[in-house]
């Protein structure tokens, strides 16, 4: 392998979920807001991976800590934030296979375990969704939860011993799939950057290459 890719980042903060399906977009939304509120060192990567199924494996490969942000099917009020270690919920994931709601985390981890490349620690920060309806945007409850989840991500990273500092001024989160109206009402300190085709820019290639 080329030297450029010799080492994987130590820590990955990963948002999972389909942005087109309402509150299922919690993960991508939370990681984007985290990126804008906190600044981390080069050993931390922040990724919106969508719904990669078993293709998740390359992004967990050889990591020290992985923080997964995802919608969580739990018997709590919508908007509740739950933080779990993977091992605590792993047995329910294998059963989950039968229902069809399968994010592929269990598959990816078992495969990496066989290669001795499974992450040392995996923590799930989940939000209980209100509605995962297509094309309806995120609910105000879950959007508020995402605003709060970002500080918990920072806490986990600091506990793990990697650099993560609050930015003196937050960047503008690019939640291009949401309408302003869906989010601005419930989180006043977040100013959304409107996505337009003409203002798109490429992410820096460095961040991409580090991620693999």
């Amino acid at each position, binding site marked *: 392998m*080329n030297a450029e*890719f010799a080492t994987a980042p130590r820590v990955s903060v990963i948002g999972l*979920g*389909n942005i*087109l*399906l*309402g509150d*299922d977009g919690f993960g991508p939304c939370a990681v984007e807001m985290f990126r804008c509120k906190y600044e981390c060192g080069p050993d931390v990567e922040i990724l919106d*991976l*969508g*719904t*990669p199924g*078993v*293709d998740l494996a390359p992004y967990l*490969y050889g990591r020290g800590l992985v923080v*997964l942000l995802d*919608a*969580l*099917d*739990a018997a*709590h009020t919508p908007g*509740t*934030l*739950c*933080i*779990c270690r993977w091992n*605590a*919920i792993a047995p*329910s994931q*294998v*059963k989950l296979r039968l229902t*069809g*709601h*399968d*994010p*592929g*985390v269990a*598959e990816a*981890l*078992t*495969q990496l375990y*066989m*290669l001795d490349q499974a992450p040392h620690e995996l923590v*799930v920060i*989940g939000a209980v969704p209100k509605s995962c309806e*297509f*094309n309806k945007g995120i609910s105000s*409850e879950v959007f508020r939860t995402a605003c*709060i989840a970002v500080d918990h991500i920072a806490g986990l990273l600091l506990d793990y011993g990697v650099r993560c500092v609050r930015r003196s001024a937050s960047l503008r989160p690019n939640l*291009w*799939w949401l309408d302003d109206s869906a989010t601005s009402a419930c989180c006043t300190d977040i100013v959304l950057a409107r996505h337009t*085709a*003409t203002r*798109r820019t*490429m992410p820096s*290639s460095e961040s*991409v*290459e580090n*991620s*693999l």
Partner: protein
Amino acid sequence: MARISIDPITRIEGHLRIDVEVDGGSVQKAWASCTMWRGIENILKGRDAREGWVFAQRFCGVCTTVHAMASVRAVEDALELEIPPSAQYIRNLILIAHALHDHIVHFYHLSALDWVDITTIPKANPVRAAALADGLSSWTGNSHRELEAVQGKVKGLIASGQLGIFARGYWGHPAMHLDPEMNLILFAHYLQALEFQRKACQVVGILGGKTPHIQNLAVGGVMNAINLNSLATMNMDRLGTLQSLLQDLIPFTQQAYFVDACLLAASYPDWLRYGRGVANYLAVPDLPVDGKATQFDLPGGVISDGDFNSVRPIRNWKDDTIRGAVAEDVTHAWYQGAGPLPPWKGKTDSDYTDFREDGKYSWVKAPRYDGMPMQVGPLSNVLVGYASGHALTRKWADAAFHRISSVHGYPVKVDDLQSTMGRYLARAIRAAMLSDLALRHWHLLSENILKGDDTTYNPPQFPQHEVVGLGLHEAPRGTLSHWVVIDNGTFSNYQAVVPTTWNASPRDEKGVPGPYENSLLGNPVADPDQPLEVLRTVHSFDPCMACACHMLAATGQEIAQVKVL
């Protein structure tokens, strides 16, 4: 008679339900149902045509790249907009790397365990396995020490009682035939495949700016800056990195994956007879070698009724052989409307009725080509290429036939590809072809850059009147088409006819079943409680229903719970 309902059937992103009626040990009737409402197209109506691809690549979590590509191609087609050659080659390299990744993952991680019984691996003799593997291939990952290490891991996994994801395999099923040594070889490659699929992802990541969800596309080309004197752009160093990643990846596809697929076919020859199904095949031309897309490295065409002499070429993306021939029927799908509609006039208004086997029973529409159901995928790609005398297709297909015949002593002809196992073989043949093409398109890109051509984008101009476009891509699962209507720069209609729509199609207005349904007729089922054989045939198509809401389930202990007020 036994009725079996399997839901979900895919190993990734579920939502496919298969119902079969079994009598006398084989399938008599079959229904394929997609259980997930999509309506993805509706999100694109009214959006700026330049940004459609950003949304389109969220249709599916696994095949993100292909939808992005089909979307920009559809808009470019509507505008008659040609793209610069370097943009074409960069797109092609992304598509090739994505397809290699996809084919490798399908063979090893999504379907090998339908054929490979890992619980026999502790009984294997690693030295004998290494000798067997060495006799088949020059692949360097077959040493007896490597195989011994893999066997040790499997033993450890079984001893710990934590088979994890492997716990739901049909271990010990009477339809599993491989001896322990073959199981060990194939499972060792299963693990190695995880390393090599990462390299394919890296190629997509370097060129696409991010993976999944590439960021470098634009209607009119790509956003990659080319400057040989800059460290931050596409330069010789980056080209070198791409080349070395491809050179690492290619031996795995050609010496391990291709060889393993032939080994599997020779070990399960019965499966070259089951699963033929709909013998109409559709493939579209792809990997254009010029900016105007007049010449292609992968040929397109149509074969009717399994007759290779009937092959009709689809010469390019403007060809009426495809543009005028597609319509979608919703008689048995949960949508409103009657009679088939061409996609440009297509509607996506739901009409849910519950599963009614004589009425509506799926969210998938029934696409038809000149009224016929069509099979799409690597098999169509390979058969169309073979029938039209395409040299690269013949090179690798004949190599597979020769290998199975001479190494394994079982004669195979091109006609045998029309089967469940044929779809696995065709995918491996296509992966070997794409590996050759990866280096060719890398050379095309490098040469064009060295000539001094650093153009990657032609800006689009949108007319104020209505225009229609068709974006075609021969994706890993087969022909993908996005049909768009653009009015003054904004989408007024958007219909995606995806590969799985063709293959998982329900019956049409005439009651003619789709490829999944048809391919299951006569499929053996030894034990209705363990319908492994049904899975083999359905998995041979590499089903991927569009992605769904996919939450994690929490029934364990939480570290913390926060009520957000």
